[in-house]
Each structure stands twice: as C-alpha cells, then as structure tokens.
C-alpha cells in the first residue's frame, strides 16, 4: 500500500524534506512507520512528536490504510 508522509517545523528540517511517498508491504501503525523513518533518515528523532492521519490527530498505535496522509510534527505552538 502507498502512503504520503508529511513533516513539519523542526522535523521537516531533520528529515530534510517536507513530503515522502512510500510503499509499505503490510499494514503498519504510525508508530512502526515512525521507527522505520528514523532508521532511514539519520538525525530524524520522532520521539515526542505528534501524529495525524488525514488531518486528524491519532494515537501512535493507529494502523495506516491505503492512500493515507500521515503527518509527523512537534508539539504545536500556534496562536
């Protein structure tokens, strides 16, 4: 299955990209995907990050589905 991954703010800088398109072999959780991304991107540290799937906050154990947009970002500081 394919998913789109987005990074923001300091995680965008650490990943050195804003957006990835990935093919995954089997259903994985946001947390498992995060672990895979940390292994593939030296310096990317996702511990403490928030995850959203399709623009909604999710628990890291949520499983991804085909076509999902998964975003990883630091705790928010808007306003």
């Amino acid at each position, binding site marked *: 299955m394919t998913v789109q991954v*987005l990074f*923001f*703010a*300091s995680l*965008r800088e650490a990943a050195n990209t804003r957006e990835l398109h990935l093919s995954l072999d089997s259903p994985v959780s*946001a*947390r498992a995907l*995060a672990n895979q991304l940390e292994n593939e991107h030296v310096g990317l540290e*996702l*511990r*403490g*990050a*928030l*995850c*959203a799937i399709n*623009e*909604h*906050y*999710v*628990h*890291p154990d949520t499983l991804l589905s085909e076509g999902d947009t998964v*975003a*990883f*970002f*630091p*705790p*928010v*500081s*808007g*306003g």
Partner: protein
Amino acid sequence: MPEPKNIFVVSSEVLDITGYMTEVTDPAYGAVASFVGTVRSPNLGEDVLYIDYEGYEAMIKTQMQVMADELRARLELGHLVLAHRLGRLAPGEASIAIVASSKHRKDALLACQTGIDRAKDLLPVWKYEVNPKSKTWVKGNSSASTPL
C-alpha cells in the same frame, strides 16, 4: 433568524479583524466578542525581531471545523470566525483571531476564551522566533493527542 455561519481563514496576508467583526455582526445577535493574539516583544526578556509561523494548512482548516463543532455544542453562537496567519510576522502583528456573535454576551466571550485555548491545543502551527541573540523553534504543546 439567520443561519449561523462558520468562517475559517488561514492566510499569509494581514488578518482583517474589522472585516471579521462586520461578518459576524447581525441584528439577531446582540453580542460580538473577539480575541486577537499578537506577536509579543520583548518575550522572555529579549526583543523579538520577527516570528516565522509554519502551518499544515489543510489540517488547520480541518481542526478549525473540530473547534467550531465543539464550541457550538456547548454555546449558543451566532456567526463564528476562526483565523490564523502564517508566514513572517513582526511584533504587534495579529497571528490569530477568534470572533463570535451570540444573543448572549457570556456565550460570545466564552467562545473566545475556550476558542483560544483549543486553538493552542489543536491547530498545527509552529513558531520560529528570531531575536538578536538566537533563532529557535518555540517549545510547543502536545495536549491534542498522545505523542510518539
């Protein structure tokens, strides 16, 4: 009675607070309240040169809908504007605005109070603050969901 409307704005243009107040004002609702957050300087003792606001625009709008639904479930509101500016802002410029009308003055004011608290929890926006001594991502808030 007019249909209550939600207006969501995410923009790198100057926020048009006056326009938002005009949008929500309606003879059917006697109260209009607003909250505007502006770039503060000095902050933590240092003069701020500017703040770069980065946002996940599509998700900001989705979360503004979540906020509006929450507010309307609890409060009797007329029209509601939720607006967040992105990009580079100088001290004193408005970064966020919440404007609500209501038949009840308390509800209009509570929409602003609850609204700004929820905006700081929910809206995916990050501040990169630049002062003469340092450039830093402002430490954020993770109360919207369980972090990794």
